[in-house]
């Protein structure tokens, strides 16, 4: 518990820093800030009003303070494109992105751990070499392109799965429908991270298998399953969990692009639409939300790791 509390306190300055970066994004936008926030159609009077409300005529640190105050209460202004309050626009999208990210994470972990384990147990076999080659290919391919190739194969040629979207317009909108729409985007997002997890699981297990205590345990005649469970996997687990945690960033980033390819109504496609519409308040809110989710996920990984390895709890 103390560990979790310490970790949560330690993250406050990071989140503040993240908010500063996101605040500064407005400064990157070409032209006048009020115009960037209200859109080119805004009248001079409304721009003047916004300048006063946000203190845009004041120094940058004061502007940041005002902006942060609004952001903390969930007020990111109104979307330029739709005039809907940004918060109402972003929240439902977050749920959809989380569905896709969790499904992909689950898939990446199952694929990575299973293939990595098999490859390690039969290292240098044909299966091992084939698996590692496929992992190398999948890890080097651009995910958005991989998604399109999967669409071409499974949706256009074989017609097994829907091309895009999250639900069938004519369907009942039930769980099976969602699952069918989820398969291709989840595979697309999962493949890259799965490839990296596979390689790491394999190499850390191969290394653990060669340790002296494993040889001793084997010489003692320990049953294979128990040997693997107690002496190999448990030893390799912390490094495997760490790498899996590192993949969260790739997963979230990859999910953004996958959403665009599959028209998945999550934060990624919202970000894409708002970039095309130059809808800066939405870009800021979306970026902040994803970054917060990422920071939180990293804390969860640290807590799991601390649970696995008592040495980390002390640090």
């Amino acid at each position, binding site marked *: 518990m103390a560990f979790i509390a310490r970790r949560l306190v330690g993250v406050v*300055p*990071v*989140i503040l*820093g*993240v908010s*500063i*970066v*996101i605040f500064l*994004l*407005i400064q*990157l*936008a*070409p032209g006048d800030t009020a115009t960037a926030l209200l859109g080119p159609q805004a009248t001079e009077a409304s721009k003047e009003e916004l300048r006063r409300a946000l203190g845009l005529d004041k120094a940058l640190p004061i502007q940041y303070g005002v902006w942060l105050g609004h952001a903390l209460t969930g007020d990111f202004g109104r979307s330029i494109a739709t005039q809907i309050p940004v918060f109402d626009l972003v929240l439902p999208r977050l749920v959809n992105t989380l569905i896709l990210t969790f499904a992909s994470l689950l898939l990446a972990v199952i694929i990575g751990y299973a293939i990595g384990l098999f490859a390690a147990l039969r290292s240098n076999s044909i299966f091992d070499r084939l698996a590692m080659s496929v992992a*190398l*290919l999948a*890890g*080097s*391919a*651009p*995910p*958005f*392109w*991989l998604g*399109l*190739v999967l*669409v*071409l194969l499974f949706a*256009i040629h074989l017609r097994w799965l829907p091309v895009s979207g999250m639900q069938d317009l004519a369907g009942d909108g039930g769980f099976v429908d969602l699952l069918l729409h989820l398969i291709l985007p989840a595979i697309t997002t999962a493949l890259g991270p799965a490839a990296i997890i596979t390689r790491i699981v394999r190499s850390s297990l191969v290394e653990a298998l060669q340790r002296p205590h494993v040889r001793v345990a084997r010489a003692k005649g320990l049953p294979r399953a128990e040997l693997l469970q107690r002496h190999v996997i448990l030893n390799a687990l912390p490094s495997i969990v760490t790498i899996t945690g590192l993949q*969260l*960033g*790739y997963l*979230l*980033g*990859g999910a*953004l*692009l996958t959403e*665009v*390819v599959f028209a998945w109504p999550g934060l990624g496609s919202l*970000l*894409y639409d*708002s*970039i*095309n519409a130059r809808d*800066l308040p939405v*870009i800021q809110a979306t*970026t902040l939300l*994803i*970054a917060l989710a*990422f*920071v939180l996920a990293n804390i969860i990984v640290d807590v799991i790791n601390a649970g696995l390895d008592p040495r980390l709890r002390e640090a």
Partner: protein
Amino acid sequence: MVADNFTSRTGQKIEEAGPGAQDLRSSRRFWRIKSFARNRSAAIAAAFLAIVILAAVFAPLISPHGPDEADNLARYAAIGTKGYILGTDQQGRDLLARLLYGGRVSLLVGVVPTVLAGAIGLGLGMIAGFLRGIVDQVIMRCLDIVFAFPMVLLAIAIAGAMRPGVLTEIIAITIILIPYFARLARTETQSIAPMPFVEAARAAGGSSGVIMARYILPNVFGPIVVYATTLMGLMIVVGSGLSFLGLGVQPPTADWGAMVAEGRVILRRAPHVTVLPGLVILAVSLAFNFLGDGIRDALDPRTIGR
């Protein structure tokens, strides 16, 4: 002046150490080249990348058509069509020509930010690792903030806030990469700073700047170069992702990622327009990964001579 006798690690004055030293050095270099050449996949990857880079540079000389030259009578041509070996897109533009010209932008966006970020990260990491204390704290805490974002997200957000273009892509990717290089450079610097030859230089009255430039830099440089090579493949993919989202070059300029996006709307009718540029990105990123692995193995003393 700082005594030059301590430069043995940089190899400048090693001749003074006696006749055997020169042999040792050249034999070590021999093993490095040999182990690199023996790594067949790395050698093939290097050759492949050389061809791709040359093809992009000399695109105007070898390309059968202009990249934006539209032939209305040859729209949607399939692979193998006469005059259009790799087919054409919805505007009847030659895909081979677009791939060749597109390589100029795509390679630039993958390579330039990696080199830029490598240089900036090297400097920041060395300063943080060598000066320690408050400077170290400030630099590293600032870089931690960048680590708090998923890599692609920050690049998209930065590029999305700015005007789309090649320069925007380069800036966005450079920013997200700096912390990765800085962290490595800092760790390497911290492991070298306590070594006797650095202490000696300090005792001889060398200023921090001189010590960093003459004694730390040559030792940190190698690992940074290796890391940069391994990252280039990933950056080609990230850069093409930004172009796919429309944050890079604007139509009609060709770019591999943008070509995938253009082909997306005609995926049913002419799948090759999407598939081909993706395959090129895959091949180039794979080649950079093999090359990076090869260079790492060649420079890693544990694998030398094996």
